[in-house]
């Protein structure tokens, strides 16, 4: 199982989920270039100027580790990166799990993405200024965490360590991409996890993805926000296990 984190996060965000699968699967988590502890020098503007560049990295990881029958779990933008990856090499992947996906954030014609073009422009601008505050102010958060000592200093500092320049580019690519045309090309068995209240990927978008990906399943999670794997890990685990288990019995 390969877990791909979304924009603004790194592999740490899967911590509540991965232990549940470690017994039955080889679990692979990674940081995209520019996030977490990745080597930001590997960043190339041309390659990562589109989501394909990130999809190529997922394929490279799978080949480098010699993975087969991969279950790819992608959160947010990684759901679309996952779509590109399974289209490129369908034989490599057994399943695709999309957590809070959106193929296009901007509403166009009949399609309701949840945001207007102006919203996204404003968001990118706001991120530019916010990122400054975020990285400069939040990076020195080096406090103990009495509740969960294992998530202490190391996590706080690594989570915030996104390279601001790359993060900006990633934000652009993420929020300005339109992958609606790619959805019907997915042949891999797919599960969509949709939160009941998600400002970034509203339920209507989840419905859209469900209808566009042939044979896909849609699981609605009673959760608020964009990260059910963090706010509602049990529900998320149960939904994924259900999807995987059901597949095994069906085959």
């Amino acid at each position, binding site marked *: 199982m390969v877990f791909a984190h*979304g*924009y*603004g*996060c790194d592999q*740490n*965000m899967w*911590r509540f989920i991965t232990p549940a699968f470690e017994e039955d699967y080889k679990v692979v988590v990674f940081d995209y270039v520019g996030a977490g502890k990745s080597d930001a020098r590997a960043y190339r503007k041309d390659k990562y100027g589109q989501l394909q560049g990130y999809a190529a990295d997922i394929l490279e990881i799978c080949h480098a580790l010699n993975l087969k029958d991969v279950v790819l779990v992608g959160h*947010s933008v990684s759901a679309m990166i996952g779509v590109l990856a399974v289209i490129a090499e369908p034989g490599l992947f057994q399943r695709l799990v999309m957590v809070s996906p959106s193929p296009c954030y901007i509403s166009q014609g009949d399609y309701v993405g949840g*945001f207007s073009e102006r*919203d*996204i422009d*404003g*968001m*990118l*601008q*706001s*991120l530019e*200024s*916010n990122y*400054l*505050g*975020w990285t400069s*102010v*939040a990076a020195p*958060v080096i*406090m103990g*965490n009495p*509740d*969960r000592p294992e*998530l*202490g200093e190391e*996590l*706080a500092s690594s*989570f*915030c360590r996104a390279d601001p320049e790359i993060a900006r580019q990633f934000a652009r690519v993420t*929020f300005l991409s339109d992958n609606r045309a790619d959805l019907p090309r997915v042949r891999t068995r797919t599960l969509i996890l949709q939160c009941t*209240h*998600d*400002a*970034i990927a509203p339920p209507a978008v989840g419905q859209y993805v469900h209808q566009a990906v042939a044979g896909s399943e849609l699981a609605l999670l009673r959760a*608020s*926000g*964009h*990260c059910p794997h*963090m*706010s509602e890990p049990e529900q998320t685990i149960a939904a994924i296990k259900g999807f995987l288990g059901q597949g095994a019995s069906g085959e």
Partner: protein
Amino acid sequence: MENKEHITRLARQGLLEERIEDLYDQAPCGYFSTLPDGTFIKTNGTFLKWLGYDASQLLFVRRLQDLLPVGDSIFYETHYHPLLLMQGFISEVNLSLRHQAGKTIPVLVNTRLVKDADGRPALLRTTVFDITDRKKYELELLRARKKAEEGARVKAEFLATVSHEIRTPINAIVGIAHLLRDTGLSPRQAELLSVLEVSTETLLRLVNNILDFSKIEAGRVSLQEESTNIRNLVGSVLHGFGAKAAEKGLSIRLKIDERVPEQVYVDSLKLVQVLNNLLSNAVKFTEQGHVAVRVALQEQTPGTVPVVFEVADTGIGIAPDKRGLIFEEFAQASAGIDRAYGGTGLGLAISQRLLGMYGSELKVESEPGTGSSFSFTLSLKISEEAPRAARQAGRAGAARGVRLLLVEDNKINVYVLSQYLANWGVAFDVAGNGQEGVEKAGREAYDLILMDLQMPVMDGYEAARRIRNMREGKRSKVPIIALTASAQPDYEGKLTASGINGVLAKPFNPEELYRLIASYGPVPALPIAGQAAAPHPQRPDAPFDLSTFDDLMADDPEGMRDLISVTVKALRQACAELTKALRERNRQLFTRWVQHTETSLELLQAKQLYATLEQAMALLSTVPVDPEQLELAEHLIGTQFRVILQGLAERLKPGE
């Protein structure tokens, strides 16, 4: 006692508790609590007042996300909330909150996650600071920083560009001074010329140092290690100082530890630069006695050898309190040094930085009046490669008899170089492009190839690669030195990849060229005072405008006529090609021809034409290209070329 009673009374009346409530309600910061999904369940008065809401408008009906502008709400979902869930708290996050009336207020928030008895997230407690003023300062600071950084960058770039630009005319002055030397000077004129020569060479060294320094500072210098015979290298550096030392009556001693391996991987250019600097200081600051160079081996570890290089002299020494200062840029041990000994004060700073790239540093021991000793240690990898033919600084010798192949398409450069080479007794062939170069290198056995990098048909990189791949073993190993005009940051890697051993910057210093060629000479000559220096060349690579041109004509009409003829031919072709490239809007071709013509224009000091060409180059990179502008550029270029060509043709007329 009274206080206690007072407090007790207040407590009985319930006023103490009320005060704690008041503290919460009227604190100078905002407080609120929400459910994990962001719904407000409690808030203080300050927060409500800041945002212009009644409690009833927020509590249980609105979520924190509802008060955020779109950008911040995405930030909330992708950054704030996940991190909060992961680590249980979040500190000092910048957000903007929407006031009821619509305006936004920049705030700083700290949030703690409170869990219920089962360990599930129950509520989020947040403290809010209004940072409207702070935000303004931040923006101002940011603006100031951007401005400062931009300023520093522009300054560094300016320094590098200016040094590079200054180098060319200085070279011309050096060349012309050399030329003047052979025009039958009176003793007085010869004396004045000596002053001129010393000054220009000092100036050239200063500019080269500044250029080196600014390149290192800008991070544009990297280590290029290659298998090198270190004994030969040190020997040849020393050899270069033989004449100067002999002149001052100093002896130079060299002691190389027998255990130092023959071949090691080292960046020979940089090592030579450091040793040159230390030796030139040692010779400069020593009036009597000796300069001793020692190369010793420290404890050897498998694969690498720590080699200690030491240059010691019996000179004036350095006072203890000045020993740190000498490594700083533009600093010398005393202000008087500048007057008495000259120098830029950059040499040691550059050496220190070059050694820094090796993780090494220059150490100094000194006794004022007795002498100084500079040393550094390099950890070098032993090379298993068989010793190759002598490299750049390999063997000391004379240039006479060296078999050299010059691969260069620019006729002016060929002309100027030929004059020098013929003068020095170098046996040379000329190839007009890379392909010809490869053919000639396959037929003849040369001691050295001088290779231009940008040429038609086949460039220097490709030619070097092909020579390296030749089947004939000996000929494929011939040392290749690249001739390059511009110090592009990425060319070093390309040089190594194509098997080029070293670089000679154009326009070159004749002495440097002589020393380079001599180091490949067949017979290592013993240093004899007064004879080791390069002979004065007949022909400088001098740029001349039409006024200096007249003076030169008077001295050597034949040579100058030749030069003009080649120049005219070259300019005619350049004019045709540039016009063609312009019409085809082929920026690449145009740029190549501009670079190709650069030397000629420099020689003629055709600044106006050069500026026009640069403007046209810029024009070609705009999208879409303005056809009117293009036409104008074509016209200007044509006219200016014509003017220069006519001026040159005038000089070719018999009887003029």
